[in-house]
């Protein structure tokens, strides 16, 4: 990896110093622009002055350009290792690989908040650039609300977390980035998560703007859906990356720890999934309007709760890198103002949203209501568990912990129920449905799923229900999605050709639901049937784990660019044939003074073999931990499928943001 070496800071030419100052200035201007973007369009929309309303568009563009400039200048400071910036000194080092110099920009509190506002401005800009078919007053109000969110976070950055602060005496080298963050999985985890969190700010802006406007209709649903979908896709990828990183980096093959910070990203994901489904009802049936608006407000609320939990360090966890009370209070104030404001507005205006579509008890609409209840309640359970230690200490004077065993027990039943009803709900027609007909169509899928579950039960050695139930559910979801897709091709010949021509939204729905099944299979397989082996191994010694023969061939000391590694060489055999040679490592990053473990994994379709080298033992041997992890990759494979399904749906012609809402108005909704 290349490196830009500019020598010790302080000798940097004036122009480079200026770049940082320009960035700082751009950030201040962006704040001012955001304030303008709030006041002028909002007043203009109130007075129906077209010029004032239209001012929102150039303001949003300018705000984005200024923020992008500030972000670029900070990136430049990291690239050139400008240690006169405090932030660069604290989080970078000249010997750091180029990739991590770039990702180091958001690998810290201040830089990550700058990334956050950059994305706020980007989403705002997207409405300004592509929203030509939005009613002008709605567009002005959406941009004004988005400007409000931007202004609040610009103020947060400028007053409590300024990334452009200088050091009076720049040091010769920096303190290096936390080595745990020097990893491709984690390097790109925050940008995706932020795209997701902040994507929900857009649905919030649409919700608040619609409340001010007093109008929620199908066109509104048509606009909110792509943003929700995009946010959900990004959250899925971000959470998947984080969990994949935890799996291979933390050294014992766990993939989800119910850590407060993980929960902080999981709650918006659940709510976004609910919102995604309810906005379909708004768009297609003009029902569930007030509920959808409420969800859109709550979804962004959870995003901000996530920011608050991560940034304030109030529920301290390994992730919390900022534990400054000033920041916590500021964020809490932002959260409180936006939530109270939006909810008050909601309470005052909820009555203007008249539902139009009527539907029977057995219908797609009813099933989506149940979907929303289950997703909402499960998010609520995660929320309660996450804040309970705080509540118990403040109000009941009990110091306690809420960990994985609680969440596994309290959360899983809702997912189980959701998985059970999902294939039925996905196939029920709108308005009024015949349950018997759908059940007849799904009979084969159900029998297949039961058979797979029973087979798993019969083959396993333990008596745990987890694995078989998980596989049953997975098979039910996957085959149910296939039946759903197939049933849309009609009857008679040419069904395959019609299958290919089905709208992308149909494909997206089935792929995403199937992906959920795949993830469930992976989680169940990994939790139920993992095999673990811990032992002392002498170099040259062979041992057996789960039918594989492993031998520790060598342990060597290897030097990396900014770390020193103890690297084992382990050959993995099945019988006599060599499958792979694995190189598990233990690294020490001298600058940061931190050890990390780098597991070596032999990835397979049906299983992973996961090897970790531990400490040297007194007798010349090494502690070696080996795991056999069935279906491990299915967890992330399923997440990729879910995200891909979402992307398919997003790319559907019918939902393309700019595409013909006027056409839709002319055609109307055909009666069934």
């Amino acid at each position: 990896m290349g490196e830009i070496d500019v020598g010790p800071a302080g000798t940097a030419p004036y122009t480079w110093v200026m770049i940082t100052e320009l960035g700082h200035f751009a950030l201040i201007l962006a704040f001012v622009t955001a304030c303008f973007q709030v006041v002028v369009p909002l007043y203009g929309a109130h007075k129906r002055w077209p010029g004032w309303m239209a001012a929102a568009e150039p303001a949003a563009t300018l705000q984005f350009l200024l923020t992008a400039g500030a972000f670029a200048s900070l990136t430049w400071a990291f690239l050139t290792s400008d240690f006169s910036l405090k932030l660069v000194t604290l989080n970078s080092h000249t010997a750091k690989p180029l990739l991590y110099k770039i990702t180091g920009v958001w690998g810290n509190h201040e830089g990550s908040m700058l990334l956050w506002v950059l994305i706020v401005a980007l989403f705002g800009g997207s409405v300004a650039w592509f929203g030509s078919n939005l009613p002008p007053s709605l567009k002005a109000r959406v941009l004004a609300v988005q400007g409000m969110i931007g202004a609040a976070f610009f103020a947060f950055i400028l007053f409590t977390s300024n990334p452009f602060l200088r050091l009076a005496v720049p040091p010769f080298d920096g303190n290096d980035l936390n080595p745990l963050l020097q990893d491709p999985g984690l390097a790109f985890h925050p940008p995706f998560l932020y795209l997701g969190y902040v994507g929900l700010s857009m649905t919030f802006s649409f919700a608040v703007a619609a409340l001010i406007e007093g109008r929620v209709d199908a066109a509104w649903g048509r606009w909110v859906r792509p943003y929700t979908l995009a946010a959900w896709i990004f959250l899925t990828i971000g959470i998947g990356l984080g969990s994949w990183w935890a799996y291979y980096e933390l050294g014992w093959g766990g993939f989800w720890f119910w850590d407060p910070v993980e929960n902080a990203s999981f709650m918006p994901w659940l709510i976004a999934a609910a919102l995604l489904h309810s906005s379909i009802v708004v768009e297609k049936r003009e029902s569930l309007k007030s509920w959808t608006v409420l969800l859109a407000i709550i979804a962004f609320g959870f995003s901000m709760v996530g920011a608050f939990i991560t940034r304030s360090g109030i529920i301290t966890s390994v992730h919390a890198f900022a534990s400054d009370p000033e920041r916590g209070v500021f964020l809490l104030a932002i959260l409180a103002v936006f939530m109270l404001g939006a909810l008050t507005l909601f309470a005052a205006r909820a009555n203007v949203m008249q539902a139009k579509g009527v539907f029977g008890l057995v219908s797609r609409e009813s099933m989506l209501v149940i979907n929303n209840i289950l997703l909402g309640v499960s998010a609520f359970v995660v929320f309660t568990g996450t804040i309970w230690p705080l509540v118990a200490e403040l109000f009941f004077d009990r110091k306690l912990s809420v960990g994985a065993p609680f969440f596994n027990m309290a959360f899983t039943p809702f997912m189980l129920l959701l998985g059970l009803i999902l294939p039925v709900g996905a196939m029920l027609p709108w308005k009024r449905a015949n349950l018997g007909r759908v059940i007849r169509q799904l009979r084969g899928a159900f029998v297949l799923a039961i058979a797979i579950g029973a087979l798993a039960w019969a083959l396993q050695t333990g008596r745990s229900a987890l694995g078989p139930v998980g596989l049953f559910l997975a098979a039910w979801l996957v085959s149910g999605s296939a039946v759903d897709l197939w049933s849309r091709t009609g009857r008679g010949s040419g069904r395959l050709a019609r299958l290919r021509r089905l709208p992308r939204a149909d494909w997206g729905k089935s792929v995403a639901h199937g992906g959920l099944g795949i993830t469930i299979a992976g989680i169940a397989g990994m939790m139920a049937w993992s095999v673990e082996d811990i032992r002392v191994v002498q170099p040259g010694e062979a041992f057996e784990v789960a039918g594989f023969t492993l031998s520790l061939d060598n342990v060597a000391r290897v030097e990396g660019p900014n770390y020193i590694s103890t690297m084992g060489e382990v050959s993995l055999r099945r019988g006599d044939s060599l499958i792979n040679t694995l190189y598990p490592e233990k690294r020490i990053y001298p600058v940061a003074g931190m050890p990390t473990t780098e597991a070596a994994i032999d990835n397979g379709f049906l299983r992973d073999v996961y090897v970790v080298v531990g400490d040297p033992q007194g007798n010349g041997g090494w502690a070696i931990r080996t795991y056999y992890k069935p279906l491990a990759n299915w967890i992330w494979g399923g997440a990729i499928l879910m995200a891909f399904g979402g992307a398919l749906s997003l790319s559907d012609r019918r939902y393309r943001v700019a595409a013909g809402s006027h056409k839709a108005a002319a055609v109307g909704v055909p009666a069934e």
Partner: protein
Amino acid sequence: MKRLVLCLCLIAAPVFAVQPDEILDDPALEARARELSQGLRCLVCRNENIDDSSAQLARDLRLLVRERLVAGDTDEEAVAFIVDRYGEYVLLKPQSGGSNLILWGAGPLMLLLGGLIAVVYLRRRSRSVEGGDASLSDDEKARLREIMKN
């Protein structure tokens, strides 16, 4: 066992989750110890159980759990022994008594509440379906009139 704890305390280097020398000879006891360890929090770490943690204190607790099990404690007795000394903070699965009822009840209660509201809402919506010509919404009726006019 005491001697083992003592000499391991002297090693300052970070140890690494469950060590080979900790593992009990009896696989059944060891399995129980692992199970219990996964429900106990490493007090100096954040949100990590003692089974996964590499902290010295976690190792001491793991050895303590095994010591109790070897001494013939049941699972409950071993956990109670540790809770007596370290407080309920050590439990990753909170007890269900007292104020924690709120925590455990939150999900089911919310489901019940949500379900009730949904039933009321859905029945109201569906009654208008069954009420004859109300199966068309106002909008649809207006459209129908328009179509009939042409």
